[in-house]
């Protein structure tokens, strides 16, 4: 049996249109999606009508502060929404529902964007609002784009690191970070090395890592199904400070005697962190007897991570890996529109008084009404 997704369709309309607003971290994203009536399938895919993003960039060595990030979102949100509507060739009144990220994320940026959502909903004549869990947005968009029907999901980004599998109308967390997220670990190391934040610190680390060839010893900290990364960061940060600070400590590779470079540090950090992710993902696959992996989240656009995951999955029978490119991997508005529209199609909307955002909002708190497999 499948869930009826058209119980709430407007009479006489053969499709739905949703606007999605995302701003839980330093990206402000606005997307417009269209679903035709009927089940989503390989013959009836969601259509991306527009997907616009603007990223708040800080100087090298600096992270993004909530206050300035919120200011960026506030000052750009109207312009970005206008652009998204023009790209999609629609008017505000064509929209069935306005979807916004309700959490998890940074408080101030979330608050700025939800105000835009509430205002538009009222301005355009009582359009229903749908609060979306950011992680669910990533998962549902990843499934829709790749066609992976029931994968184990590795969700890796600046604020989240989780291994997730679906069971009985919940996306359940099998393993996760015990302290900082993987993207946070990479970004903070980028700050230590004063690598530019444009286009993204993680991207720049990835490029440097390609030039690294010596693997240095780093702690490997998988704890059951979970992992810990703050210790690794502390260790490599210290080493980098000794090497590139006043001390100018010389470190050499144990086997070749060649000097260790910043590129080698980036390479080693990636290799160790990604190995840990591959290990817990493989174990989750065995647990749920699956052979599909879907990688979502900003760090998911890292090609080395995709490559390492592929090596693991190829050893499994009919193993398949699914990943998306930066348009859908990195935070965006379209995934919020898509997941929100699924919610809307099963009758789940938020009254204005229930649109308060929350910094903590776990993936498994969401009831996945649109699936019942």
């Amino acid at each position, binding site marked *: 049996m499948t869930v009826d997704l058209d119980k709430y369709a407007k009479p006489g309309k053969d499709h739905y249109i949703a606007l999605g607003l995302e701003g839980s971290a330093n990206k402000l994203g606005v997307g417009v999606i269209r679903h035709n009536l009927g089940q989503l399938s390989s013959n009836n895919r969601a259509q991306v009508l527009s997907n616009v993003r603007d990223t708040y960039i800080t*100087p090298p060595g600096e992270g993004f*502060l909530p206050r300035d990030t919120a*200011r960026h979102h506030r000052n750009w949100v*109207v312009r970005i929404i206008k652009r998204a509507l023009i790209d999609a060739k629609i008017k505000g009144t064509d929209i069935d529902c306005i979807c916004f990220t309700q959490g998890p994320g940074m408080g101030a940026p979330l608050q700025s964007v939800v105000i835009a959502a509430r205002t538009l909903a009222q301005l355009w004549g009582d359009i229903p609002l749908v609060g979306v869990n950011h992680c669910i947005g990533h998962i549902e968009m990843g499934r829709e784009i790749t066609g992976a029907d029931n994968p184990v999901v590795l969700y890796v980004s600046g604020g989240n690191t989780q291994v997730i599998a679906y069971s009985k109308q919940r996306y359940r967390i099998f393993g996760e970070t015990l302290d900082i997220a993987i993207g946070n670990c990479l970004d903070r190391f980028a700050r230590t090395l004063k690598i530019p934040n444009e286009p993204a610190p993680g991207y720049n680390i990835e490029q440097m890592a390609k030039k690294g060839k010596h693997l240095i010893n780093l702690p490997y900290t998988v704890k059951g199904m979970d992992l810990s990364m703050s210790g690794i960061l502390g260790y490599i940060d210290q080493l980098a400070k000794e090497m590139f600070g006043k001390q100018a400590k010389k470190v050499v590779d144990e086997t070749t005697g060649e000097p260790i470079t910043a590129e080698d540090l980036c390479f080693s950090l990636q290799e160790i962190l990604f190995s840990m992710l591959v290990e817990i993902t493989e174990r989750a696959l065995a647990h749920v007897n699956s052979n599909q992996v879907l990688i979502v989240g900003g760090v998911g656009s890292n090609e080395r991570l995709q490559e390492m995951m592929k090596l693991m999955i190829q050893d499994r029978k009919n193993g398949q890996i699914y990943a998306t490119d930066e348009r859908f991997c990195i935070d965006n508005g379209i995934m919020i529109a898509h997941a929100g529209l699924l919610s809307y199609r099963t009758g789940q909307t938020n009254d204005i008084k229930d649109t308060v955002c929350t910094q903590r909002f776990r993936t498994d708190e969401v009831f996945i009404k649109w699936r019942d497999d």
Partner: protein
Amino acid sequence: MSSSTLIPTAEYSAPDLKETHKFDVGNGDHSTDGQTTQISDIVINAGGEDRDKPSEAKDTPLGHLRAKLTTLQDQVNVFLTERMKQDKSKNAQKEEEDIERRILDDGVDEDDSD
């Protein structure tokens, strides 16, 4: 009220205030570039530039409302920041009095006596 004169207002009341504080945007020049909503010094000092300035207000009723709202926001921010400062200094004063009381009345901190 006609739509050409949209005027935002705000009121603030608290148990320790005798009267409700009313904010009035006045007739001055209004702009969307607020005094209290500038980029952090931290970003500028680190060599960053401000690429996120708000767009200028249009010469329309809603545009004027935006500019006035920015003035109102500035007033509210200044007012609340001042109140927070007062709170802080009150607390600091209280703490000082406390130390004095402990030294003069008790001679020793009670916590240290056992």
